[in-house]
């Protein structure tokens, strides 16, 4: 089996000879029996390393290798989704991240469809900023229903995930999300706390929503004036 596996990924990940051989062999075993994944998936970092991948900014070797292992699964659609959820559920934080980051590739190559959503939803329920951020990659941004997507973005603001690092805002930020963010800004201003600067581009798309926030700032509340990162044109 191992000889039939495409050597391309090992080359583009810059794997050494031993790691490349391990990956080819592991992919062959998973292709023959998906149950092999349960012990191979956690071992990927120990065998192949955890450094950055030069050719793939934002990726580490263990993440990219684990996605290659997922692509070796002879499964599609709902069956693939079930296997991913099982793997994710029993995974440590690094394995969970790799499953989340692999969703777009599996959507493209394996007809995953909506079957990856249970993994995304679970990650969005955690308080681990790394998982929340990964859940809002291109797959989550394409598949989450409107309400869930808005709640997830607002959660990012709460737990400090920069909105520049999540997907889909250009096309999915709607008036309801802007309203939620304006309310959030108001709540923070009344409490004398800082408002994260990255919410303003979303709110500014709907100028009517700015009225209340503007009024708060105009009252000259010392907390609001001191704590706000509101853009200059608001004050």
């Amino acid at each position, binding site marked *: 089996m191992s000889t039939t596996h495409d050597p391309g990924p090992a080359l583009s990940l810059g794997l050494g000879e031993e790691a490349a051989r391990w990956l080819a062999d592991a992919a062959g075993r998973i292709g023959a029996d998906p149950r092999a994944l*349960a*012990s191979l998936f956690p071992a990927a970092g120990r065998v192949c390393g955890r450094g950055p991948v030069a050719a793939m900014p934002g990726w580490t070797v263990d993440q990219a290798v684990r996605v290659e292992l997922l692509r070796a699964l002879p499964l599609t659609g709902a069956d693939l989704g079930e296997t991913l959820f099982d793997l994710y559920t029993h995974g440590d*934080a690094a394995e969970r991240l790799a499953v989340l980051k692999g969703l777009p590739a599996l959507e493209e190559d394996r007809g995953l469809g909506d079957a990856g959503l249970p993994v995304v939803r679970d990650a969005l329920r955690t308080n681990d900023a*790394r998982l929340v951020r990964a859940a809002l990659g291109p797959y989550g941004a394409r598949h989450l229903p409107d309400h869930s997507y808005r709640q997830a973005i607002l959660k990012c603001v709460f737990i400090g995930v920069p909105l520049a690092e999540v997907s889909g805002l250009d096309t999915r930020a709607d008036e309801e999300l802007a309203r939620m963010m304006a309310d959030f800004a108001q709540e923070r201003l009344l409490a004398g706390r800082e408002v994260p600067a990255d919410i303003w581009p979303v709110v500014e798309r709907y100028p009517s929503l700015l009225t209340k926030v503007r009024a708060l700032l105009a009252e000259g509340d010392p907390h609001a004036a001191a704590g706000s990162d509101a853009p200059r044109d608001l004050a």
Partner: protein
Amino acid sequence: MRIFDPHIHMTSRTTDDYERMYAAGVRAIVEPAFWLGQPRTSPGTFADYFDGLLGWEPYRAAQFGIVHHCTIALNPKESNDPRLRPVLDLLPRYLAKDRVVAVGEVGYDDVTPAEDEALARQLELAAEHGLPVLVHTPHRDKAAGTRRTLDVVRESGLPPERVLIDHLNEMTVGMVAESGCWMGFSVYPDTKMDEDRMVAILKDYGSDRMLVNSAADWGRSDPLKTRAVADAMLSSGFSDAEVETVLWDNPVAFYAQSGRLDLSDVKPGDTYAGNSIQRGAPRDR
């Protein structure tokens, strides 16, 4: 001073503890899987607990500059509940994880046939997964329980240098020293072992294969007891190097046998000079 606490149950502790531990010099910890005070009744709650030890808790520790690893096992006390036997079948999947640096805590509590069986099976799993073992010794009838533990470990064929026998005291240290296993001491506010008795044992037995931990959990305990032992060692004439051996090098050497101890994120400790000033002055908190 850099401190490695080789046995502490952070799941039961607060972020204040993490802050105080960092300030005291703790940079790395191992959290053994154990019982939670309230007995569990289904294997699913173990899976959630193990997931927490591998996901949420290391993430929480990292926010405070502390590197977290764990050990995974079905603990002796809960191995007596037949509803929890399937936990043994969950273990292989968890023992394959990157941040699992030993099988543990295993051992005896009431010394029952069910405990015998769980201990023997988990010693086999340690051999299969190439992991060292953290062994709990019983609180009641400790000397007899420890002797029996050493017999079972010997029969398992595991090399003694891959086994750490924990919660030792004056009664039990001698037999473990002879066995070649590593010796662990849990320093508590008023039970098990205190810092002055610990220093006396170190004077008698030396620092070779000796580990000191706080075993802090949901009971009355103190996550700064590792630092208290370091201070007591220095006050009674031990050198900085000997303190480093017991509180850093030994736990690193023991758990590094797993091949999975990753200390690349450890932040530098404060200086020895800084510590000597801090010891003489009131703690600023």
